[in-house]
């Protein structure tokens, strides 16, 4: 019971890291990026390659993957995404579906359609157990690691967005790009950096999730719905909204798959639709905008 809860929380944390980048591009920049999962998948592949083939130590792999995917994101933003900001939502949807289709086929071509596996280093394997039978808490080392890392990341992001100069510049650019640039804020650079960080985080999430989520070419399409649920349910106005939403989703998903395996996915979708009908702007938004 408690073990399940903990697994759910770890899963949710992972989802949060994966989708927080999307919540920034989608919420702040109002861009529907369905290709977000492609960045996560690239992260996963980089991780497998670096760690399993080049034998780079685990803790060094993570920041390297983050930087690599962030660079990739920055490149894509500069070359392609920047032209899409002002287009209609339909255009954005088509464009990003196109990108994810391409990434799926490309990975299939280069790596093959088989699932990649990641063997964790020894200090992350194994698990601890506490407590008596009905309330046993089994904690896998790796899941504990994920929870801790994600908690730290969340705090960094939250402070970054609300306390730093960059954060306020970003919020200003999003509210009104014209006025912001009139005030001397380099709007394009801010967006570029934000997009890069967002995709870097997705890559990091993919790297962390390589062991749990299974990295394969269909990854972007398979998990797209989960990222979107997190963002849509969590609302896009804060960091904490998506955080709660991903926890909720993680726990619901793990519990659903454990207790009623036939209808695990079903419950998540129904829950999402109900929540969206009840609060179309997301569950954790203050007041109703627009």
């Amino acid at each position, binding site marked *: 019971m408690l073990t399940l809860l903990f697994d759910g929380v770890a899963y949710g944390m992972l989802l949060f890291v994966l989708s927080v980048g999307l919540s920034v591009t989608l919420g702040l920049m109002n861009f529907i990026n369905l290709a977000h999962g492609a960045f996560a998948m690239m992260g996963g592949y980089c991780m497998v390659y670096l760690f399993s083939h080049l034998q780079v130590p685990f803790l060094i792999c993570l920041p390297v993957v983050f930087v690599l995917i962030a660079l990739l994101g920055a490149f894509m933003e500069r070359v392609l995404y920047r032209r899409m900001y002002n287009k209609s939502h339909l255009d954005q949807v*088509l464009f990003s579906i196109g990108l994810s289709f391409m*990434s*799926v086929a490309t990975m299939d*071509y280069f790596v093959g359609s088989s699932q990649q596996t990641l063997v964790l280093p020894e200090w992350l394997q194994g698990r601890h157990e506490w407590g008596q039978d009905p309330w046993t808490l089994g904690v896998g080392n790796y899941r504990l690691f994920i929870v801790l890392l994600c908690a730290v990341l969340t705090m960094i992001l939250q402070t970054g967005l609300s306390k730093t100069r960059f954060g306020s510049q970003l919020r200003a650019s999003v509210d009104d790009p014209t006025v912001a640039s009139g005030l001397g804020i380099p709007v394009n650079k801010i967006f570029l950096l934000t997009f890069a960080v967002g995709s870097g985080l997705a890559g990091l999430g993919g790297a962390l999730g390589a062991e749990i989520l299974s990295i394969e070419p269909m990854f972007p399409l398979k998990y797209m719905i989960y990222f979107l649920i997190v963002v849509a349910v969590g609302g896009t106005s804060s960091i904490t909204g998506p955080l709660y939403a991903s926890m909720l989703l993680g726990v619901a998903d793990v519990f659903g798959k454990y207790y009623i395996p036939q209808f695990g996915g079903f419950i998540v*979708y129904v829950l999402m639709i109900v929540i*969206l*009908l009840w609060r179309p702007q997301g569950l954790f938004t203050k007041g109703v905008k627009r």
Partner: protein
Amino acid sequence: MMGPNNMLEIKRLNRTKIWEWVVLSLMLASPFLFAERAMMINEIAITALFAISLDLILGYSGIVSLGHAAFFGWGVYAAGIFSKLVNPDPIVGLIVVMGSSLVLGLICSLTILRGSDLTRLMVTLGVSLIGLELANQLRDLTGGADGLQGVVMAPIFGVFEFDLSAKVASIYSVLICVLVLVFVRRLVRSPFGFGLVAIRDNSLRARAVGLNVSHRLMVIYAISASLAGLSGALLAQTTGFASLDVFSFDRSADVMLMLVIGGVGWLYGGVLGAAVFKLIQSQLSSITPQYWMFWIGLFLVILVLTGRDRIKEWFAGVSA
């Protein structure tokens, strides 16, 4: 208030142009002209019908849906199961499926009235995924992952039997596709259709001039769902098979792509798109079956970057 000029304009629009007669008769003649490709014609007619149904909500009403396959899939399974368990007559099957998808669409339309594009996207996608889960889990009824097998249809009107070469099937599908096209043409050029376009362009103003926005969106969503169900039913009846992929995200994305190739918000866009898409697909996948997805993706990206109104503009001279 409509001035006399606007009325004239509408009358002019409503007149069937010569090229439209040509297109419609070409469509009707296609099963006979390309009799050896009857299978292909059948498929194109079915997907064209599906694309037209999506155009009603996407092109004419501005609802971005990523889950229109929900109704298509419903149509496929409903038609298959109905013919297996209740009545194998194809026409009765079509009517039942259309009615049931209409009701389903009406219920689902409640979910798209509120919220932004993103919310609609998510909700429509969610509905189609629920359909997928249900079809997968209700194994006794749907055959689960193996697909629904052994659908045998009675002859149409008790006379025309479905044959292996798909000749009858292709005539049947094309005929229904043309009928729907004529109906949709009438629909979008009625006051109701103009109201939809007004809602798409600016729902706030549409409301201000006294249009009942929610009511109209619900009606068009239900009609669109029923047509999508109809196309699904045609697929089940003519192929005698139903598999889980009818609910998949790929199918919703593909049909959207077809519509975009042909032109969104243009009556013949769906037909043109479906024909082009299916022909390219059969060509390309015979060369590179696995990486067909890459080329669709590349095509989409380039299309959006160059502006997807181009293709429509090429035909603008014709359709104006």
